[in-house]
Structure formats: structure tokens, C-alpha cells
């Protein structure tokens, strides 16, 4: 009876077009125990054809799949042991890997230590670079956000300025349907007034749409309506904690001093922001509405003065060009045809904000490449040392081959060994990173941490790094070692020869990277020391500036009187030789512009910076007069019709300094009384900008700084004395002073941080490379012991033997050097081009690097070589 049904089924199988779902079948075949698979799979298959006949394809298939899944119960499955096919051999691989590690401690140390340093450096760099590369990434609409700005077309070229007018926002929204949202941002500073004390804080004026454009989630408050009325203020959670000792400060009241309005206003907290990431261009503490400013109405339609930033949110980033093309018409309707000719409106993608205003993302990417370079150097150490070791493992490899190991298995073995090493290295590297983060942050004044990543991300990242590193460092040894012929391997006929060429290429690559890093670091250092040491054109050594503005007095006229008294008191101090008042100081120079043309010009006016000083300014700063005269003494009153130019301005006007020159601002004529030498009031990265310097005496409220030239001994006492005097004045702002010297140094903070990192990581790179070289030397000497001994017996000198060993290394270093030069030239030319005042690329730098690296190589290789060369040849010859 059974036979009958079998035959019947046979027919139905062969005639059937349908078969069980293949994937389900495969799944079960893979996981099912061998001894059960005939029964289970056979039954399922048979049942499939039976059900196919009775219930149709769909049901049979569904049923089959369902039964496959139900069959996957633990009892039916292969044990893990069988599942991974040959765990036994794997266990052997791992065992051998550990044994090899322990057996060759010095190489293992070099490998693991080198790799972990490489990994640690890479992770540190990654954490830092990620912060910069992901700058502002928290804003969900980032790609659609644009900053509207203007360009002035002047005879000097195109000048971009990023401030716009109060009515710009409404105009853009009304005229262009592509603009979804728009918000203005104005950050004039300000203070919180608490118990009659002024505490300086950042106050941001903006529009409610700010919260639609940028992503600043609320911790407390109403998402739909952030501001209740014009007396509403939004706080950051930090400020809420600072002033109200709790995060939910909604409903609390706070008094703010608005310097732009010169008044104190009471605000009620309507919302508190969630904590936002630190890598954010806007770090609002207090947010109030534009319209909250009492004088808002006066400027609401003012197309004259531009001082705030206007952001737009577009439907798509692609229509920015379309919009820019439409802007000239807008300009014409606002100011007429003339302005249309010399003004452009542009849209700056918010993604470029960082590069435009804050720093260089490219620097972060360069650092990332340095990190990869270090990792590569460490991986090459591993590759070289394992292939070099190969000869010592010949017997093992040969035996494995004879016992039937195929290439693939040997490959797996060496890859496994690499994984074990790289896993160790990554774990060690992560420990190093954890230990190093606090000092790294301290030293470079940055705030990197793992906080922005979840534990799973960190583990995943580490796993990927370990696997990548394992593959990178293990693949070449695996290929090389597995492809040896078994007989040759057993006879140990393959000596050092084998893949010498490839190994040499790797060493050369290592040293090229290291040389590149070191040369670049030296050049960056030279540029920075050039900038910090260059004569700025003014005296920064003995000058100190005090922030002293009449605006910080409740009564401005009183303030001016008191400040002048203060100034006189300073002048009478024995240790102060000169005192000057000014609107701006070098390193904190003016950002105000005016349109000006030389008398007799009919062309377009030039847009030029201007500032105010008193008659003693140039003396105090020791700025040299090039032509003409200084301003007359302050006792002569404001000299409103005189101006002093810097050389850059004189050049821009094409003035002959020996002629009496006149400039015109509108119809107002000013006589050029003198021309001063260009002094660098900003970073040397930028060319000295043309500046007009006007005169006002200390009786004018325009001044904001008092600068003294003083004797810098007994500084603490003297500063205390001055501070006491300041505190008697009754100003609302605290005593604040700057040493000009420090200010100059601060200009190059970013560069110094960059230099610090590049130096540190270059040092690491060369250390790791030398570590590898050391291991390689040990090995080469070991291999050539006999040769060296025979040479000695035959009468070779120690120097001759040393030359023999050093010849190879010298060759490698020289080739690496030659290879690194074009990269350095390319990269450094590009980097230096970012600086207007820069050093030439000097061949001395290259020479210094070469000598430095040679010295290091000699140190690394020397001791072991010397020991080998001077050892007694008998010891190494008698063992056969």
C-alpha cells in the first residue's frame, strides 16, 4: 500500500511545476541536524506535494514555510560546534595566535603597542574632527537654510558683508513664494540686571520663525507659540539654572539691560530651550523678539542702516540660484538703478557658515587624514614584522601544508592572528583614549568626548575599526605566507629574500608619511612663529588697554567727565608714560565702514573702514608717521576736518603723499594731515585693510578704550591700584584690561591648536614608524648573523659591517624623502596661501627634517647594529 502511494507521488512530483520555497528549504538544510534532516526535511517535502494536490500551491507553500519555521526548534538544530563547520581548527588558530604573541614578545609589543597608539591617535582625531565636520548638524533643515547677504562692487573688488536691513525679512517673504520662512538675528550683547549688578550675557533678538528655521527644541514652554508677548524671553537651560536654580523657569521674571536701546526692560520667561550641542554656530542664552526693542518701529522700514543677519528657509536648496537671479530687481525697487549696478544680494548656504565665519573644516579633514596615516604606519609595522617572521614559522606553515591545509585555511589562520592582535590593540587604544581625553581637552582647549555617541555606536565603531585594521594588517602576510611552497617551507629555503621588494615599499611608504607630517609640522610652526614674532607695526610689548566706554555709565555725560579724570590720574602715575583714548584698538579693530572718494574723483566711492582716536594714540602705540603730521594736541578740540590715513588707504586713493590731499565723504571735505605706516591691527592672515583715522578728543563719547604705555614691572600691584581707581568711577561694567601682547597671541589660537595637534600626531607617527624599524632591524640582524660573522672572520671592520646594515636604511629614507617632497610642496603651498603675510617654503626645512629623521633612524637601528657588528663571530658560527 505504501509502495502504491509512493508511485503515485512520484508521478505527481515529476509532473509538478511547483516546488517548495527554496529559501525556506535552504534555511532548514543549513540549520537542521544531520541525523534529523532526512526525516524532517523529507517529511516536509513529501507533505508539500501532498498538500499541493489537495489544497493548491499557495496553501502548500505557506504551510511548508510555516512548518520549516516551526521545525527550527533547538533540539533539531546543529550544535554551534557543527554550525561553524570547523571550530576546532579555529580554536587551534587562536591558540597558535596567542602562543606566537607570547613567544615573540618584542615583536608582539611593537605590533600591539604601535597599533594601539595608532588607533588611539585615530580615535582622538576622529572625535575632534567629527565635532567640526558635524558642526550645526543638529539643524534638521540645514540644507535649506541660507543667510542673505550683500556684496558691494567697488573699484577695489567685490566686498561681501553679511549684515542686512531690518525690513529685509518681510520684503523677502512678501516678494518670493520660494521663501518659506525668514528670521532676523541680532546679537548686540547685553546684561542681566540683578540686585543693581550688571552681569554680561548674550542677548539675541530674533523672530518667532527662528524656531521653525533652526532646530532648538524646547524643554519647557509651548512649541506652537514660543513667545507669549513682547515681554517674553526664551532662556537656555543653562541660563535657567544659573538665574533661577531650576530648569523650568517658565513664568519667572528677569530684568535685561539692552545696550543698543540703552534701557532696562522686564521680561517674563515663556520657554526654556533643551540643551543644544556645543558645535553649534548659534549658542543662544537669552532670546527676545525683534519687536521687543523699544525703538523697533523707528527702524522697521529703514533701508539705510544694515546691522542684522537675515536667514531664509527655502523649499529646496536648488532654488537658491533662481532667487539670487531675481534679487537685482528687488534692489532696484528699493534703492534705484544706481545701487543695482554696484550691489549684489547673495545667499550663503548655512552649511558654509562654519567655513566663512568660524574656522576651516578642511583642517579637520586634514587631521583625519593624518589619523589614517598613523593607522597605516602601524598596520605596515604589523605587515612587515609578520612577513619577516615568516621564515621563523616556516616549519609550522610547511607542516600544516603537508597535513593538508589548503591556502584558504592558512590565509584564515593568519587573518585570525591579525584579528587577535588588532582586537588587543583596539581595546588598549580605547583605554588610552579614555585616559587621554581630559589632558587632550586641557592642552588644546577643546571639548571632545564620547558623549555624543551611544554605547552601541562606540562598540560598533570599535568593532569596525578592529576588523578593518585586522584586514589591513593581516591580508598581506596571509597572502604571502599561504602561498609558500610546502617543500621549500619545510626545508626553510625561503629566506629573507621572498618579498623583500614589497616590504621595502611598505617601509618607504611609512617613512614618506612620517616625513610628510614632520616637514609640514615644521613649516606650520615656522609660519606661526613668523606671525607671532613679526613686527606688527605697533608696540605690543609695553601697552595695556582698559575697556572704558561712556556708554557703561548710567549718566553718559557724567561718564565722560569721570573717564577723563581717570585718564588724567593714569597719566600722572610714574610708571605710565603715555595714555590714549580710542574707539578701537589693534586686534579689536573697527568694523565700521564709510563711503569715501578722493577730492576730484567722479568714479564710484570706495568703501573703507574708519575709526576715531585722540591725538596721543599714535605715540602711545609707537606707530610711525610716514608723511605729514600728527593730529594737533587734544587741547585744540575735535579736529573734525582732519584725517590720517594708513599707507594702504593712501595707496587705494592713489595719493601722492607729498601733495596736500583731500578726501570727501558725501560732500564733507577732510584734509589728509598725515599718513602712518601700515600696522597690523588684525591677524597676519589678512592684508592690512585701508583705514581712515579721525580725531576726537577724550570729551567725545565715541571712545571705548584707554590704552597706556607702561612699565611692566610690579604689575600685579599696579593693576590693583588702577582697579581701585576704576571702581571709584561708578561704571556699570567691571574692570577689564588686555595686554596687547596677549591679544596678538590670541589671534593665532586656532593656528596654534592646529599646530599642536599636527606636531603631536607627527611625533606619534614617527615614533610608531621607528618602532617598526626597530623590530625590522632586530629581525634583519638575526637573519644576517651568520653572514656578519663570516665577514668578520674574513677580516671585515666593524665600520664596514655597520655600513652594510645602514646602506638599506639610508636608501629607504632617501627614497621616502624624495617621495614626500612633492606632497609637502603641494599641501603647504595650499595651506600657506590662506595667509597674506607668509614665509616662503624653504629648503632648509626639508634639510632639517631629513637630518632629524636620519638621526632617529640611526638611533633606532644603531644600537642593535653596533652590538651585532662587534659581537664575537665564534658564538654565531659554532652552532652548526
Amino acid at each position, binding site marked *: 500500500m*505504501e509502495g502504491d502511494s*509512493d508511485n503515485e*507521488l*512520484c508521478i*505527481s*512530483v*515529476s509532473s509538478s511545476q511547483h516546488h517548495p520555497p527554496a529559501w525556506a528549504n535552504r534555511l532548514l538544510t543549513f540549520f537542521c541536524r544531520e541525523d534529523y*534532516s*532526512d*526525516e*524532517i*526535511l*523529507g*517529511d*516536509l*517535502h*513529501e*507533505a508539500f*506535494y*501532498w498538500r499541493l494536490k489537495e489544497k493548491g500551491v499557495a496553501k502548500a507553500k505557506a*504551510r511548508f514555510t*510555516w*512548518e520549516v519555521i*516551526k*521545525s527550527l*526548534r533547538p*533540539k*533539531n538544530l546543529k550544535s554551534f560546534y557543527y554550525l561553524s563547520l570547523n571550530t576546532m581548527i579555529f580554536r587551534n588558530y587562536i591558540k597558535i595566535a596567542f602562543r606566537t604573541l607570547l613567544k615573540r614578545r618584542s615583536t608582539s609589543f611593537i605590533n600591539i603597542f604601535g597599533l594601539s597608539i595608532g588607533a588611539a591617535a585615530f580615535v582622538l582625531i576622529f572625535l575632534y574632527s567629527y565635532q567640526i565636520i558635524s558642526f550645526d548638524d543638529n539643524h534638521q533643515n540645514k540644507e535649506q537654510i541660507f543667510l542673505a547677504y550683500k556684496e558691494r562692487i567697488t573699484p577695489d573688488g567685490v566686498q561681501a558683508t553679511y549684515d542686512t536691513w531690518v525690513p529685509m525679512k518681510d520684503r523677502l517673504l512678501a516678494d518670493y513664494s520660494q521663501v518659506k520662512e525668514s528670521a532676523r538675528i541680532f546679537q548686540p550683547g547685553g546684561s542681566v540686571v540683578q540686585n543693581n549688578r550688571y552681569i554680561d550675557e548674550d542677548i539675541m533678538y530674533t523672530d518667532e520663525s527662528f524656531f521653525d528655521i533652526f532646530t532648538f527644541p524646547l524643554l519647557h514652554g509651548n512649541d506652537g507659540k514660543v513667545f507669549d508677548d513682547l515681554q517674553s524671553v526664551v532662556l537656555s537651560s543653562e541660563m535657567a539654572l544659573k538665574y533661577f536654580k531650576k530648569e523650568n523657569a517658565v513664568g519667572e521674571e528677569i530684568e535685561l539691560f539692552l545696550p543698543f536701546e540703552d534701557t532696562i526692560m522686564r521680561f517674563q520667561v515663556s520657554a526654556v530651550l533643551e540643551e543644544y550641542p556645543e558645535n553649534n554656530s548659534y549658542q543662544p542664552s537669552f532670546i527676545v523678539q525683534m519687536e521687543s526693542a523699544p525703538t523697533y518701529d523707528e527702524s522697521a522700514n529703514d533701508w539705510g542702516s544694515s546691522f542684522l543677519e537675515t536667514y531664509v528657509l527655502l523649499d529646496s536648496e536648488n532654488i537658491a540660484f533662481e532667487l539670487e537671479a531675481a534679487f537685482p530687481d528687488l534692489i532696484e525697487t528699493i534703492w534705484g538703478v544706481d545701487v543695482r549696478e554696484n550691489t549684489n544680494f547673495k545667499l550663503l548656504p548655512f552649511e558654509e557658515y562654519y567655513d566663512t565665519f568660524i574656522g576651516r573644516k578642511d583642517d579637520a579633514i586634514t587631521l583625519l587624514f593624518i589619523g589614517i596615516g598613523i593607522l597605516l604606519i602601524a598596520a605596515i609595522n604589523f605587515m612587515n614584522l609578520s612577513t619577516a617572521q615568516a621564515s621563523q614559522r616556516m616549519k609550522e606553515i610547511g607542516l600544516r601544508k603537508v597535513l593538508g591545509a589548503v591556502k584558504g585555511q592558512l590565509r584564515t589562520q593568519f587573518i585570525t592572528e591579525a584579528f587577535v592582535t588588532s582586537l588587543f590593540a583596539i581595546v588598549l587604544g580605547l583605554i588610552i583614549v579614555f585616559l587621554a581625553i581630559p589632558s587632550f581637552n586641557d592642552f588644546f582647549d577643546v571639548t571632545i568626548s564620547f558623549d555624543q555617541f551611544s554605547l552601541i555606536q562606540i562598540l560598533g565603531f570599535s568593532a569596525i575599526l578592529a576588523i578593518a585594521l585586522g584586514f589591513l594588517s593581516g591580508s598581506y602576510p596571509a597572502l604571502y605566507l599561504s602561498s609558500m611552497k610546502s617543500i621549500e617551507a619545510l626545508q626553510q629555503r625561503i629566506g629573507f629574500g621572498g618579498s623583500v621588494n614589497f616590504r621595502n615599499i611598505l617601509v618607504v611608504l611609512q617613512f614618506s608619511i612620517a616625513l610628510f607630517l614632520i616637514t609640514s609640522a615644521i613649516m606650520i610652526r615656522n609660519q606661526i612663529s613668523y606671525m607671532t614674532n613679526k613686527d606688527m607695526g605697533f608696540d605690543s610689548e609695553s601697552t595695556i588697554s582698559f575697556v572704558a566706554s561712556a556708554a557703561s555709565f548710567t549718566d553718559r555725560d557724567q561718564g565722560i567727565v569721570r573717564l577723563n579724570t581717570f585718564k588724567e590720574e593714569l597719566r600722572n602715575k610714574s610708571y605710565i608714560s603715555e595714555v590714549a583714548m580710542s574707539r578701537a584698538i589693534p586686534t579689536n579693530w573697527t568694523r565700521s565702514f564709510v563711503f569715501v572718494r578722493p577730492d576730484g574723483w567722479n568714479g564710484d566711492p570706495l568703501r573703507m573702514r574708519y575709526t576715531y582716536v585722540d591725538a596721543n594714540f599714535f605715540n602711545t602705540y609707537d606707530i610711525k608717521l610716514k608723511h605729514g603730521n600728527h593730529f594737533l594736541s587734544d587741547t585744540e578740540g575735535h579736529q573734525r576736518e582732519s584725517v590720517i590715513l594708513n599707507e594702504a588707504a593712501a595707496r587705494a586713493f592713489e595719493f601722492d603723499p607729498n601733495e596736500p590731499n583731500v578726501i570727501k565723504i558725501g560732500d564733507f571735505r577732510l584734509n589728509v594731515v598725515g599718513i602712518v605706516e601700515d600696522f597690523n591691527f588684525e591677524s597676519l592672515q589678512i592684508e592690512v585693510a585701508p583705514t581712515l583715522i579721525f580725531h576726537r578728543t577724550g570729551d567725545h563719547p565715541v571712545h571705548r578704550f584707554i590704552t597706556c604705555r607702561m612699565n611692566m614691572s610690579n604689575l600685579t600691584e599696579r593693576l590693583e591700584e588702577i582697579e581701585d581707581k576704576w571702581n571709584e568711577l561708578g561704571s556699570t561694567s567691571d574692570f577689564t584690561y588686555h595686554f596687547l601682547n596677549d591679544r596678538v597671541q590670541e589671534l593665532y589660537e586656532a593656528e596654534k591648536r592646529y599646530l599642536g595637534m599636527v606636531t603631536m600626531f607627527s611625533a606619534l607617527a614617527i615614533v610608531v614608524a621607528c618602532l617598526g624599524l626597530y623590530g625590522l632591524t632586530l629581525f634583519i640582524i638575526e637573519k644576517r648573523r651568520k653572514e656578519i660573522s663570516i665577514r668578520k672572520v674574513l677580516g671585515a671592520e666593524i665600520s664596514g659591517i655597520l655600513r652594510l646594515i645602514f646602506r638599506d636604511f639610508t636608501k629607504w629614507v632617501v627614497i621616502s624623502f624624495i617621495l614626500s617632497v612633492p606632497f609637502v610642496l603641494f599641501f603647504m603651498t595650499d595651506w600657506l596661501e590662506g595667509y597674506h603675510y607668509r614665509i616662503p617654503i624653504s629648503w632648509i626645512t626639508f634639510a632639517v627634517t631629513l637630518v632629524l629623521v636620519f638621526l632617529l633612524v640611526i638611533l633606532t637601528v644603531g644600537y642593535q647594529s653596533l652590538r651585532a657588528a662587534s659581537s664575537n663571530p665564534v658564538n654565531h658560527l659554532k652552532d652548526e
Partner: protein
Amino acid sequence: MNLQLGVLEEMILIILLMKDETYGVDIAKEYESQLNQSISLPAIHVVLKRLEKKDLVTSKMGEPTAERGGRRKRIYQATNKGYEAAKYLQQKRSEMWKVIPTMNFVFQ
């Protein structure tokens, strides 16, 4: 005799006793035809393994056939112990049935 047997275990044991020699799919067919109720093969496999462990059935490998994709059947046969166990259960059940006061249910 002290054996715990589930309902499904007992059913399949009885089918095995009926059939002399049989295997998974055949049991499923028989079960469906007798009880008018479908049953999944993995369930049968589990029960068979359990019965085998209790020594109520034995098994041997059969011949490969085409519709099984060339795989062999595992052919099950009830043991004497299996027969005893099923019979014992049946007896006990009959004895217990006799005690049920039929009237209460039939003529309600």
C-alpha cells in the same frame, strides 16, 4: 504502570498501533482523516521524539524516495511497551467511564 501521556501523544501512539509501521506524513494523513483536523508535521516530529524517548516507539531509517527529494523516511513502530501503555490507558479510561452516571447527561 505510571506513564504520563498527553492527548496528542496518545493519539499518535494509537495511530502507530493501527498502522504497524508508519512515518511522519502518513501519520499526518491518518490523523487528518480520522479526526478531521489538520496537524503540523513539526508537532508530530516532536511527539514522535518524545514517545521514542519513553521507549514507546522505535524507529529505523527507510529507503529514499523522489518526492522526499531523495531523502529517507524514518519509519516508526510501536513497541510492546507502547502497546501496553496505550492499552492500560484505554482500560483505565473504560473503567472510569463506567462510573460516570450516564443519566445525568443523557436525559437532562
